[in-house]
């Protein structure tokens, strides 16, 4: 139980030590950060084996008094562990990729410190069983991601980051408002406890309002469709490794994860909310895919594609059935892997050629074989071609839609998938296919550490389908889905009777 605290103490300590003593270790900073994140990933794996899930940890030793929590609690269940694994694994890979690709920037140790702080904030959000703690750690990761987006300080970066900050800041305020309303009604900040208090009260309007506030606030952080406008600016503007972590995990941990937790365990996922989630997901999926198809900037195409994949996750989670939740979680994990890989590829192309406009690119197949091969795998994954990972999760989502009695939604999702395929065929064709161009004389494949990062992710893209196997599925996905599908009854698991 004590080990849980390491998820916060170790990243914060590393970040501080990097800022204080970074001058002497700046050449090794990338490796240090990567090792720290890998160690945390190993810790997650260890948590799967040694602990009886779910459990709660009372921070500072303030155990509940007569069943009422008075301090902060961490909640550790299958869902938390899945998110922790994604966060820390992606952190490790991103740090590995950063070693060579960030070389041209100054203030590198601050970059790595910020990466650690981003990981710390997301770990804190994933662990929080307390609304306000969730808000505070959300702010840590949000602020570090604002800074990371603008790390290069170009005009475009600054502007995109400013937009991101303004929308993110107002989202935080909406979330804080909702938290204040919850405290007004229940007098507690613990999610499980608040849900228990509310089950005995009738406050329909307030809960509706609170739910709307949470949905808008976290929806802004997750870039669900009507609230997406910052993402297509912020993610392309950031340096490549930062875009990878932003698109790969940040939008999920700051947006989708709290939404799922709050709606399933606190507000109650039924009535009007199912419909709203499905509609929002369906809009994000289709519109973002169409917009992605129209893009010529590689990173912008990928950014719109992130929104559409978030749409898939929202639909799957919105169904509320056990199969839907499993499919959503599976797609979340898959998307983390292949979207990080695609942003790495885009970064590699930009690093090698100096631009990222598809109209000017072409013929990179022979010059950058590793980038080409890995991006092909990632593209097929995201487009949902068998046997790559994306196929299985999208198939599950479609089956879940059918089973839940939404055949139209299933067709809609399949259509969206075809659009994604079209967008990525465009990416492959214009980026790697076609004749050689004259600028290519001096082009080299990216450095070795970046290649390693891409290859690891590509292997995972192929291997993630294994999560469908019964053994792994019951070990990893099912505990997470189980805790969510229990809905409001899960409070007894966290607080006892």
């Amino acid at each position, binding site marked *: *139980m*004590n080990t849980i*605290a390491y998820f*916060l*103490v170790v990243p*914060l300590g590393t970040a501080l030590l990097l*800022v*204080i003593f970074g001058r002497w270790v700046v050449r090794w900073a990338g490796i240090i950060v990567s090792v720290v994140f890998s160690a945390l990933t190993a810790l997650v794996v260890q948590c799967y084996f040694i602990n009886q899930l779910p459990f709660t940890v009372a921070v*500072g*030793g303030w155990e509940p008094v007569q069943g009422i929590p008075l301090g902060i609690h961490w909640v550790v269940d299958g869902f938390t562990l899945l998110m922790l694994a994604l966060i820390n694994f992606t952190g490790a890979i991103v740090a590995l990729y950063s070693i060579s690709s960030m070389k041209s920037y100054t203030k590198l140790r601050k970059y790595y410190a910020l990466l650690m702080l981003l990981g710390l904030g997301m770990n804190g959000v994933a662990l929080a069983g307390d609304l306000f703690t969730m808000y505070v750690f959300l702010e840590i990761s949000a602020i570090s991601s604002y800074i990371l987006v603008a790390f290069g300080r170009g005009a475009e970066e600054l502007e995109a980051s400013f937009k991101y900050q303004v929308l993110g800041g107002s989202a935080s305020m909406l979330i804080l408002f909702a938290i204040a309303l919850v405290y007004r009604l229940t007098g507690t900040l613990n999610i499980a406890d608040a849900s228990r208090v509310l089950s005995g009260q009738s406050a329909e309007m307030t809960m509706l309002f609170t739910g709307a506030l949470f949905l808008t606030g976290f929806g802004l952080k997750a870039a669900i469709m009507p609230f997406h406008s910052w993402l297509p600016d912020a993610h392309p503007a950031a340096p490549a490794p930062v875009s990878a972590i932003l698109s790969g995990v940040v939008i999920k941990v700051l947006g989708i994860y709290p939404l799922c937790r709050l709606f399933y365990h606190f507000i109650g996922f039924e009535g009007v909310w199912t419909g709203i989630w499905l509609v929002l997901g369906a809009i994000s999926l289709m519109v973002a895919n169409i917009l992605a198809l129209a893009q010529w900037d590689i990173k912008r195409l990928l950014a719109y594609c992130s929104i559409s994949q978030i749409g898939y996750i929202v639909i799957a989670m919105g169904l509320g059935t056990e199969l839907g939740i499993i499919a959503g979680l599976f797609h979340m994990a898959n998307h983390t892997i292949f979207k990080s890989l695609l942003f790495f590829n885009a970064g590699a192309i930009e690093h090698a050629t100096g631009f990222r406009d598809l109209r000017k690119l072409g013929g990179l197949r022979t010059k950058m074989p590793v980038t080409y091969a890995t991006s092909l795998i990632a593209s097929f994954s995201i487009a949902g071609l068998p046997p790559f990972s994306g196929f299985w999760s999208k198939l599950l989502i479609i089956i879940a839609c059918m089973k839940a009695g939404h055949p139209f939604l299933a067709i809609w999702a399949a259509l969206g998938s075809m659009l994604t395929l079209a967008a990525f065929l465009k990416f492959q064709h214009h980026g790697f296919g076609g004749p050689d161009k004259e600028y290519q004389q001096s082009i080299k494949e990216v450095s070795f550490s970046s290649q390693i990062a891409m290859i690891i992710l590509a292997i995972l893209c192929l291997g993630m389908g294994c999560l469908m196997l019964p053994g792994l599925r019951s070990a990893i996905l099912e505990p997470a889905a189980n805790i969510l599908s229990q809905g409001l009854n899960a409070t007894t698991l966290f607080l006892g009777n």
Partner: protein
Amino acid sequence: MKHGMSVIVQSIARLMVPFIWMFGIYIIAHGHISPGGGFAGGVFLAGGFILITLAFGSAPDKEERSQDFASKLESEALLIFLIMASIGLVLKLGLMANLLAKTHPGLPGHIAAGGLIPWENLAIGVEVSAALAVMFIAFARHRLKE
């Protein structure tokens, strides 16, 4: 801000700043007894510093040095706070355990009470004041450049 402000402002600042700092330290030290604490006191300390800089101005190289110093001080103060928080972790009491208070809570209302709380207040106070100083100097230096 090479020149600072007029003599009147400077002498008033010279008179006031010691009191502001004393008040800040008092607030930090009595955070567990009376209103205030690390945050309020830290902001007062930073306020005194800002008043001095505004009144007297400073040279660019000195600003750079004090910015580096403040930045380092800030990180170190936060590190000390983190270490205090982790003592409980090492002793298997959990992160943030106020272990002194569990055995000797002291008498509420006395300065030697609250276990780790006064020390944590001190670390927070230093962290906050240094962080605000860093922010302020960053703005001031930028103005010098333009």
